[in-house]
């Protein structure tokens, strides 16, 4: 009976350790990739808008050489402020479900004016068509560089669903954790100090699992090589992943320390009680 009781306690401890991991992971994702403020601060830290601006300009230059037009036609067609505003619009669309669109009218007008000033002559029909194609290409290039996609609303609804799921899962996890702790208390009612051992083991398992997961991810992937969409967004993604791995590392170490402290406390109390018991047995009755 006693063995079944202990086995049951350890099984519950095992479930508790999984709920601890799930709780940490949910909190971590909610405060990082699902958090608009976090993403915005990461972009700010990486000087994202400035880099995107440079990337926009660099991408424009790819087309100027083959267009036959002078490079000067690209001067001042897009500003840093516009790049920042438009990028914020896209992020807002994704996180808050806004419907703001990116306008390229300003770029189009500026570019057409610059071309007109640069050429100083009437264009043939074919040349005009080429200029129109060039202007449209530049406008599309701008949109694609600042990551404007037609899927912003889809991404937003996906974000909403994930957030809702995570919120529900979090509640379930908290309830499960309380039930687990309550069950451990009930099952250890005769030797309450054993609660420390079971909870200590749970926390240590959580810490170990997180630590091993982090080591596995780092050994199997090279975060610094991850390249998605463009260089700027890749840097931000790499930073976010590195931050997440650092959070996992920090949490795993904290959990391991807490777990071992719980186990130590249990061991000290257990030894003290055993010593007391022996002392009582060998003390002659008066």
């Amino acid at each position, binding site marked *: 009976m006693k063995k079944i009781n202990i086995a049951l306690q350890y099984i519950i401890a095992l479930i508790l350790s999984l709920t601890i991991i799930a709780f940490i992971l949910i909190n971590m994702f909610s405060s990082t990739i699902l958090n608009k403020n976090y993403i915005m601060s990461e972009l700010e830290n990486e000087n994202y808008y400035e880099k995107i601006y440079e990337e926009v300009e660099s991408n424009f230059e790819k087309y100027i050489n083959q267009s036959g037009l002078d490079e000067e036609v690209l001067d001042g067609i897009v500003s840093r402020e516009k790049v920042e505003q438009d990028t914020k619009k896209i992020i807002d669309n994704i996180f808050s479900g806004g419907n703001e669109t990116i306008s390229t009218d300003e770029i189009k007008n500026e570019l057409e004016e610059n071309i007109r000033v640069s050429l100083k002559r009437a264009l043939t029909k074919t040349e005009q068509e080429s200029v129109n194609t060039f202007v449209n290409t530049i406008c599309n290039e701008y949109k694609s560089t600042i990551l404007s996609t037609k899927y912003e609303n889809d991404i937003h609804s996906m974000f909403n669903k994930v957030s809702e799921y995570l919120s529900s899962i979090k509640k379930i996890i908290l309830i499960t954790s309380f039930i687990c702790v309550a069950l451990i208390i009930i099952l250890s009612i005769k030797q309450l100090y054993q609660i420390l051992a079971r909870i*200590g083991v749970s926390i240590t398992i959580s810490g170990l699992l997180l630590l091993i997961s982090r080591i596995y991810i780092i050994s199997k992937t090279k975060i610094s090589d991850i390249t998605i969409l463009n260089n700027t967004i890749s840097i931000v993604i790499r930073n976010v992943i590195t931050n997440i791995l650092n959070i996992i590392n920090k949490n795993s170490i904290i959990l391991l320390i807490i777990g071992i402290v719980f186990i130590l406390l249990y061991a000290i109390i257990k030894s003290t009680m055993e010593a007391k018991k022996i002392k009582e047995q060998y003390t002659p009755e008066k």
Partner: protein
Amino acid sequence: MHKHKFLRNTIKATIKQIIVALIFTALILFIGYLLFGANIEDAILLISKVSINIDEKKTVETIIDDNNKLKNYPEYGTSYGTIKIPKIDVDLPVYYGDSLDILKKGVGHSSGSYFPGEGGSILYMGHNSKKVFRRFSELQIGNEIIVTTTYGEFKYKIYDMQLIKETELDKVPIQKEEEILMVYTCYPFNNIGYATQRYVVYAKLES
């Protein structure tokens, strides 16, 4: 004596619980691997697909041996030299490859052609913009083109210029009998939009 026993018991109980924790961790990892192992492998594979190993880029310098054989060919997309055409003040880096990104940076080297010093056809290309080959029309027979690579300097003398259609590949033949440098750009030089003609400059190796 009692203190020692107390300490021994405490350590024993601690180690016992830590071993329990380790066994359970191993058990969870094993079950997790059985249940999600394939998914984890897929995720790792996906991450590797979007990873570019910068460290793997070749850093070994290209060299040429006595039989005009190149060793350690340059990596696609990397610059391995410069092209100078003093007559039209051209001094540009030469990149191995001919993608849009490469041509944005300088002169491209068609990957199907030979390298300077190998004794065959070398095909270079560049945009007709001001910074690159806009002034090609000023070139004349006898003008010099100097290609400086990481493995040596090669001087060529222009012996012909031709206007060809973009589809006339037989006008820029790749052969191994004689070292000929062919450099082309889009024509007309001040064209707006896509150009279907190419202005080719042919030069023979002098030294």
